[in-house]
């Protein structure tokens, strides 16, 4: 995390002094690679949590019902969620699943675990069109041929 911040800040300062009209130069390949690695680390952590019974108390995991994050539909949030009774964000829905089917303790919205779960779910739906509020036909996640579904 720190490495990336340093890189981004570095490029920012350089760009401000070097060129006024183009306030920031594009990220270098190296910058992009590091940032992507940081994201994938979080995705990996989310993948582990998603497949771990420790979020709940009845042995179930998120993956019991959502193989490859299928049917999590992050592309449709926020939306009115009948089982929550109001417009819910993806994080609200993650917590609902932890509380009801998994019989676990809800996570703080800004916790590292919540961010990791969210990162994994979003990443498995990369490239999908955003459709906030859509409660019609769900779109499947990316089609995975082998491996965990991310690089």
């Amino acid at each position, binding site marked *: 995390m720190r490495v990336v911040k340093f890189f981004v800040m570095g490029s920012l300062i350089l760009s401000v002094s070097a060129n006024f009209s183009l306030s920031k130069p594009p990220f270098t390949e190296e910058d992009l690679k590091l940032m992507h690695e940081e994201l994938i680390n979080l995705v990996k952590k989310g993948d582990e949590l998603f*497949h771990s019974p420790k979020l709940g108390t*009845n*042995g179930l995991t998120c*993956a*019991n*019902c*959502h*193989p*490859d994050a*299928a*049917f999590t539909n992050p592309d449709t949030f926020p939306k009115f969620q*009948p*089982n929550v009774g109001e417009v819910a964000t993806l994080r609200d829905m993650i917590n609902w*699943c932890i509380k*009801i*089917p998994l019989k676990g303790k809800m996570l703080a919205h800004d916790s590292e675990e919540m961010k990791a779960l969210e990162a994994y779910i979003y990443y498995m739906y990369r490239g999908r069109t955003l459709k906030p509020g859509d409660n019609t036909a*769900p779109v*499947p*996640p*990316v*089609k*995975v*041929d*082998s*491996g*965990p*579904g991310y690089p």
Partner: protein
Amino acid sequence: MKKISRRDLFKVSASFGVGAVSAFALSPFLGLVEISEAKSSKRSKISPFNFAVIGDAHLYEMPNHRFDETLKRAIDDVIRMRPKPDFVLFIGDLANFGKKVELEKGKRMLDRLKDNGIPYFIIPGEHDWYLDLGQTWKEMFGKPYWSFDHKGVHFIGMNSILVEDYWTARNMSPWERMLAIAELECHICGLWGVGEEQLEWLEKDVKNLPPDTPIVIFTHSPLWDYYPRWNFQTKDAPEIRKILSKFEKVIAIHGHVHQVVYNKTGNMVHIGNLATAWPWPYPPVELPYPEIKMLRVDPGDIYDGVGWANTYIDETFLGLFEYKTWAELIPPELKKGVPL
């Protein structure tokens, strides 16, 4: 066992709304029915009967688990059926982690069927198998593949979840091996199938049967390529289909997919059974028959998205696969059963 006449069958179907025959006639899948009918035998001597299919119970060790409740409800429903089904087929994944306590719990629950005069047959699923490579399961239930004849129909059950060794080279413990394959999207487990031994057995088993013999085959996984990523497949299904290709018609019933799904290949019709534990979402591929599909599931209701099935076989070897559910899961046009 009590013989069920066509008239009785009619009565049973009628109690669900419309008689079996008129349900066929009104069915939106008329084309499909006609094909099955054309292929069904004129000469066979089937006395119509029904049997129930239960599966994918995924029992956990802890007491009073929600999956105990849903399996119990299915078993209670079957015990209350009138007329009684001739038998029950349990289609795999009785346990969740192949533990002895899980399998014992499952056996105790299934044995209630026997106590109520309903025999049951059983095949394994991957969740029953990979803690001790089937040892406990076999001690408890015997051979994982078998066949028998019943009222003019030849029934076959096979163990379709045999994978190649992914654990030895990785130095995995039995528990690690089980945990890996307990994930539907296991990406080190590889594709499973029945293997050479069972293919040879199957060949011998059907060798002397005439082509007009009605065949029903049970496997945990589908005998067609649905979504290999989740092992919604059986590696040597092409060989199985070839061995069975001499028959006029074969009905193939499978579990593992935890969903309503239907397909046809050559002389075979395939149908997926619901789990009693939880539903799987549809995978990111086209369904071969998109009209045969379950409705949206309420994840807050442990009785939604799950169920069991009652199967009628009539004297012309037309089947009717009736999904039995406890919530609004089956589209109205499928409620009278999916013709097989």
